[in-house]
């Protein structure tokens, strides 16, 4: 059926188009296809990747989370403050748990603001973005927090490799698979799709809408926290200014991957593809010494291409409901 083919094209065609320059790069540029570069690429992708996975969850829910970038910074700062405050192996566990717990709380507050106080996700998480950034700046007094001893070893581990693969990349893959399974195979995931698809129907069906929303925002924040830990492990230190604009990159990747801002649609697989493509193209531009200024522009172009591509001439995408 040509109609079916067309709808596949609308859904996946953009990946083919974006894959094209990457394949060309792979063929013509020996540096690009070096295992070392691919290793780097995977590692680089994992920070935004983890954030984008969480973002996908709330996008499907029909929401939005602008606070993930600063939440990433919060996770780093809390973790490294704990690292700096003690020594012994247990400090690592303590730091990570404290950081992720803080993120979970921030996410749950996002969820509560949205569900109980009826603040739109955009505003709620925009407020949270500044609030958390302010908090981080205050507790660090704007200074970088760094780790020695076990904390430093932990950072090294996160940046290291396991069986020839980057630890950060493996963590990203693991989390992506876990969230994908959660979304596709669990009742929770089913409810996320249902709420994003038609919230009124979800309410009438007696679904625990508030609970699912709060849990989703909490999970999104925790994933952002993991991203923050990966980010800070690069330098074994936490910067209060880390993660600025990461939320936009995460949203970009998820949208390229097919998540709809109206909710009800999206997939982790698509998002992961989106992240990998964006990172690969950035990496390619680096290899040719294209300035980072251009890279930002290219990211925007890709976003517009991706969305325009899947909606242009696609009647399904416009809401001609019957």
């Amino acid at each position, binding site marked *: 059926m040509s109609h079916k083919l067309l709808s596949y094209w609308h859904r996946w065609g953009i990946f083919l188009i974006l894959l094209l320059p990457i394949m060309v790069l792979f063929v013509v540029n020996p540096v690009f296809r070096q295992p070392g570069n691919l290793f780097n690429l995977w590692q680089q992708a994992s920070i935004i990747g983890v954030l984008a996975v969480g973002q996908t969850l709330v996008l499907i829910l029909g929401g939005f989370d602008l606070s993930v970038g600063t939440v990433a910074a919060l996770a780093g700062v809390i973790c490294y403050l704990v690292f700096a405050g003690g020594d012994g192996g247990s400090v690592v566990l303590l730091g990570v748990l404290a950081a992720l717990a803080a993120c979970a709380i921030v996410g749950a507050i996002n969820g509560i603001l949205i569900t109980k106080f009826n603040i739109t996700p955009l505003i709620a998480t925009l407020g949270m973005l500044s609030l958390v950034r302010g908090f981080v700046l205050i507790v660090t007094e704007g200074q970088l927090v760094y780790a020695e001893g076990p904390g430093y070893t932990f950072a090294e581990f996160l940046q290291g490799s396991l069986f020839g693969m980057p630890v950060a990349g493996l963590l990203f893959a693991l989390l992506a698979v876990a969230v994908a399974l959660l979304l596709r195979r669990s*009742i*929770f995931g*089913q409810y996320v799709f249902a709420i994003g*698809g*038609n919230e009124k129907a979800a309410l*009438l069906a007696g679904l625990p809408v508030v609970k699912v929303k709060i849990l989703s925002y909490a999970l999104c924040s925790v994933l952002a926290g993991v991203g923050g830990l990966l980010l800070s492990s690069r330098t074994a230190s936490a910067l209060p200014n880390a993660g600025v604009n990461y939320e936009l990159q995460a949203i970009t990747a998820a949208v390229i991957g097919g998540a709809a801002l109206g909710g009800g649609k999206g997939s982790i697989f698509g998002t992961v593809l989106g992240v990998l493509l964006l990172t690969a193209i950035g990496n390619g531009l680096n290899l040719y010494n294209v300035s980072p200024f251009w890279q930002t522009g290219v990211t925007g172009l890709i976003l517009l291409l991706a969305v325009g591509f899947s909606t242009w001439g696609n009647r399904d995408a416009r*809401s001609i409901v019957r």
Partner: protein
Amino acid sequence: MLTMRGISKSFSGVQVLDRVDFEVTPCEVHALLGANGAGKSTLIKVLGGLYPDAEGQTLLDERRIDLSTPKTALLSGIGIVHQEFDLVPEMTVAENIYLGFENLHLADGRPLWQRISRRKLIEAAGALLNEYKLGIEPDAVVRKLPAGAQQLTQIARVIALGSRVMIFDEPTARLGLRDRERLFDVFATLRASGKLIVFVTHYLDEVMAVADRASVMRDGRMMVTTQTSATTVGELSRTMVGSDVHGPAKRKQPTLGATALSVKGLSGPTFEDVSFDIAGGEIVGIVGHLGSGRHEVTRSIIGQIPARGYISAHGDAGRTRIGFVPENRRAEGIFAELPVGTNIAIGFLRERSILSLLPLRAMETTGADVVGRLQIKTAGTEQKIGQLSGGNQQKAVFGREMVSNPSLYVIEAPTVGVDVKAAVELHNEIFKLAERGSAILLATDDLDEVMLMADRILVMLRGRIVKELDTRRTTRQDLVSAMGAG
């Protein structure tokens, strides 16, 4: 037995339900009747746990039930197909049927982390749809289904819930002839198994055919409950509206003007080589079962669905406006958050404004005029249209097209969800539009309506116009057989 006693509900001071008593017994199909805005849907929403602030009490089998949230209502044994759609469009039929009870039984405390088995859902839904012969595929995505199939999905959901009380708010409004028969078979089966069935409709012949008892509401009050065998259609409608209902004025012999719409060799996704003309002042009906291409032809004339071929509409000033009344008013006809007055006036803002300023006076007078003429039940032209009852929204959408004066109207199912009296009103208005010289294409599933209104009827089957009937020389039976098995 379901007993509602002294149910009252008001919205910001407007009393919508006034001490309503309502009783349904087991093994009964109970019709809930009333004019548009009488309070039927509101009463049903109280039962559905949507208005916890309503006064009064509700008992099921002598026990009080908790109607504070939709969930508690569901768990108390109340299953509802609401008047407006409540499906998740991106999900499959099976997923929608079992939404909220994915482990197939409606027990409380489902763990969110539990695995969901789509295969099991599809199997269960498939069995159910087969058993009740509903004729939809369990793995179809709801968004892609026509309105009728979506309605059947909602009905299947209530059957799957297995609720003791099953309530259907205007289920037949979106169903074609055959699906109505299917639904009534479902009612019979459910009644035999001891369920309490309530259904709302504006088609009184349906009431006489399938209901055991009927309750009639008017202006938020319960007027009467009777055995259907002890009453008549005339008496029921008299109780509904408070006065006799007279049939529409006879269609005057039309004076035809120049051709207003000419369609030649139109082909599109589901139809082929469709050709017809409509003259000014003429009413042409177009009918066809689901899948006959009727819907798509209509929508390609208004420019929504692309098609090949030739369409010309001749307007007065070289430009043609088409007055379009969509069948799906909620999604395509109203601006739910805007006032009734604005919804009515929005079609003529450009014509009447000076220096691009809003013609506030004209908006107000026209809004009030339409509300009066069509007897739209509203707190005022300032009320948000989304708060009106379903039938009153429909009337307002019609009213909007009525006030601007295009030479061609495309009208889909104008009286779906509209009460008996208002239906007569709308039919008269359509006659008037034709007498003013407008050409009218009337697409409807209601065969009585098309027989009454149209001068000619185009019958579609498998994407083609297979017959053109002159209404004066046609019986309803001719029409049914021309439409084929579909």
